[in-house]
């Protein structure tokens, strides 16, 4: 048991640091974000430029095999890179689905010539990927998708609608879950494809989110042609392909819990004043109630970090990470919500004032408070994750359901 870098890890860290210093821009304030002041198009261009640099230096996909355009490095090196990059202004979510979900699915399931076609431009940020699974009638119950793909010679013709597709408005390609056989039970009639988001018949409509942003979209497919060689996995093998993607998603979302939330809380508590029975006003940071919440914030966020560290150790010893990895997203998303909400409470009624008027210090926590409900839903809701833990980890019975054996066509009718 040792938390310190091994000599090899320390050497890699030094290399990463030197590269970042030469190529990146350090944050000037803790809450500064990439591309502040740029419009959407300029920010996207800047993000792509950064990703290209990163890929050329071999940091875009550290754990991937060299043949696939990666570095052939270790999971630990990936973490070291992320730790060091955290101090820099880098684009956050834009490439996450490409590199965390879309491209790994292509790497696992696509034919060699497609890998050669897609992996390198994807890693370099020239092409961005989205994930088209959810539909109005199929969210938690992903097996219920109705987007229809029908074979037509060497092509498939796709009609239907997806929803909540993050990033679809700027993406080039997507992985698309469709129904190809309506006579099989719901999860057995699905097939996964690569879809060109710029193909005729694909229409993307942004959705206005509760946070005020529009990061996800509705996507409509009208007679969209997809060549059969863009199929990922066997016909009617889409469920298995999807599970392999979602497993990646849960790991990567869990890994996204910021590791400095308690420090943000401390910084804000130093600036607010609280009173209690003993009098006041005193700096909130001296109040026992505030201090207790700072401690609890640390317990959650550091706990998630440590669970991931344990998973990485397993990977580095050639073992599969244990089932405890399945709790990271569940714990992390709710922790973000709780910590952000408490941060706002530090300022009492004034905490209701938007950061534009209250001050830039509050921007980070206010945005986190407005985005955390989405983090609890995307990639599997809290409730679905609890079912997964109860059933796969603790071995408790599955949900009672009536839809497992019937042909999907009959379910539709019912």
């Amino acid at each position, binding site marked *: 048991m040792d938390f310190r870098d091994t000599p090899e890890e320390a050497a890699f860290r030094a290399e990463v640091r030197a590269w970042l210093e030469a190529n990146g821009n350090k944050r000037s304030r803790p809450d500064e974000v990439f591309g502040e002041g740029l419009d959407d198009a300029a920010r996207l261009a800047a993000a792509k430029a950064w990703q290209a640099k990163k890929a050329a230096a071999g940091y875009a996909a550290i754990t991937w095999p060299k043949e696939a355009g990666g570095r052939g490095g270790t999971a630990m090196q990936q973490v070291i890179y992320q730790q060091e990059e955290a101090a820099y202004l880098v684009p956050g979510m834009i490439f996450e689905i490409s590199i965390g979900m879309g491209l790994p699915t292509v790497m696992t399931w696509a034919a060699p010539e497609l890998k050669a076609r897609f992996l390198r431009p994807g890693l370099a940020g020239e092409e961005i990927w989205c994930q088209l699974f959810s539909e109005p009638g199929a969210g938690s119950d992903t097996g219920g998708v109705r987007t229809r793909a029908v074979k037509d010679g060497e092509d498939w013709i796709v009609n239907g609608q997806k929803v909540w597709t993050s990033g679809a408005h700027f993406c080039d390609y997507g992985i698309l879950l469709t129904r190809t056989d309506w006579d099989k039970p719901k999860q057995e009639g699905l097939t996964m494809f690569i879809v060109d988001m710029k193909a005729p018949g694909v229409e993307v409509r942004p959705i206005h989110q509760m946070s005020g942003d529009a990061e996800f979209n509705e996507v409509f497919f009208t007679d969209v042609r997809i060549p059969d060689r863009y199929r990922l996995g066997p016909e009617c093998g889409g469920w298995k392909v999807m599970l392999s993607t979602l497993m990646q998603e849960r790991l990567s979302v869990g890994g996204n819990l910021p590791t400095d939330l308690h420090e943000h809380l401390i910084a804000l508590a130093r600036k607010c004043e609280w009173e209690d029975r003993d009098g006041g006003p005193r700096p909130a940071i001296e109040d026992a109630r505030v201090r207790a919440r700072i401690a609890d914030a640390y317990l959650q966020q550091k706990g998630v970090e440590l669970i991931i560290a344990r998973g990485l150790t397993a990977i580095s010893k050639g073992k599969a990470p244990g089932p405890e990895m399945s709790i990271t997203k569940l714990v992390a998303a709710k922790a973000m919500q709780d910590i952000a909400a408490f941060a706002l409470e530090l300022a009492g009624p004034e905490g209701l004032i938007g950061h534009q008027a209250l001050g830039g210090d509050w921007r980070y926590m206010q945005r986190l408070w407005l985005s955390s409900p989405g983090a609890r839903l995307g990639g599997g809701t809290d409730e679905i994750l609890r079912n997964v833990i109860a059933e796969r980890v603790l071995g*408790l019975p599955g949900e009672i359901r009536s839809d497992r054996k019937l042909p999907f066509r009959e379910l539709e009718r019912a």
Partner: protein
Amino acid sequence: MNFDFSDDQRLLQDAVRTMLAETSTSQAVREVLEGRASHCAAAWRNLIEMGAVAAAVPEQYGGAGLGHLELCLVAEEAGRHLAAVPLSSSFYLAAEALLRAGSEAQKRHWLPRIASGEVVATAALGSRERYRAPAPLAFDGETLTGTSPALADGGIAGLAVLRVGGELVLAGLAGAGVSREPVPTLDPTRPLAEIRFERAPAERLPTADAAAVAARVLDGAAVLLAFEQVGGAARILEQTRDYALERKAFGRQIGSFQALKHKMADIYAAIELARVHAYYGAWALSSDAPELPRAAAAARVAATRAYVVAAEEGIELHGGIGFTWEMDCHLHYRRARHLGQLIGSEHAWRARLADALIEEAA
């Protein structure tokens, strides 16, 4: 980075687990619960003979000289099997205080006796919370006078390390001037006793900073107790899960009700969170890292929460049978309480964690 125990350490853990499964049975623990024994002698003797409990005592003082990581895994098994033994008193507290603050002569005299089980030792190093202020202990350089109100394993201990004002004092409990009285306890499997000293011979542990030594020993104990708590919590969750698969209501296994599934998933998450904080604490303890105060406090708070919740909900999910004397649910309910308050409550430790975090962010 390597965030796991080694294969050798896991082998020791397996051996301890196998041994405790045979000796620290529900029946054996109940001998102590119902007052027919002061501790579980067979389990204790085996733990001593395996060299497991003296893992962190150096060889020159009669220990196994392995280290604290090994002791952490022994602690996890002790917690899992509800071992009714003076492990924390003798080894997490008294032996550690002696090692850190004792003179060479004191260490040479006492540590081999503790390591061999000849003497059970205990300690009271100060707590942030109290109710009755007993006659304060007074030490005049040679003798000790006053009362220690709730000394763990005080009924069988032959030696105590006590914090008296700004000093750490070593007092034999077998000689003149010491009287002891068992007190009724909420977890009778881990008995406490009130000890009265009346000009009892005692000596100082020669340390310049008793407060720092006490804090350091308590940090170590917090980590080790966290392993006991994680072990106990995991066990009661497993038993609850097994029962939920067996018991039927409304024509279904109760484990198929989503309210129960989700509750157990949350308990599992709490235990895993506590486990990794305990691991982190184990690393900080064994490597004497500067992160120890933060890591130990985090382990203590997370593990206390996890065990208390697992034990409380363990009874709830068993239904009426969980509320009976014959089921082991209440042994965990009691033990979770004992471990969670023995070296100060989670609130004091949460405050300590906040102190460490805020100091670091200065």
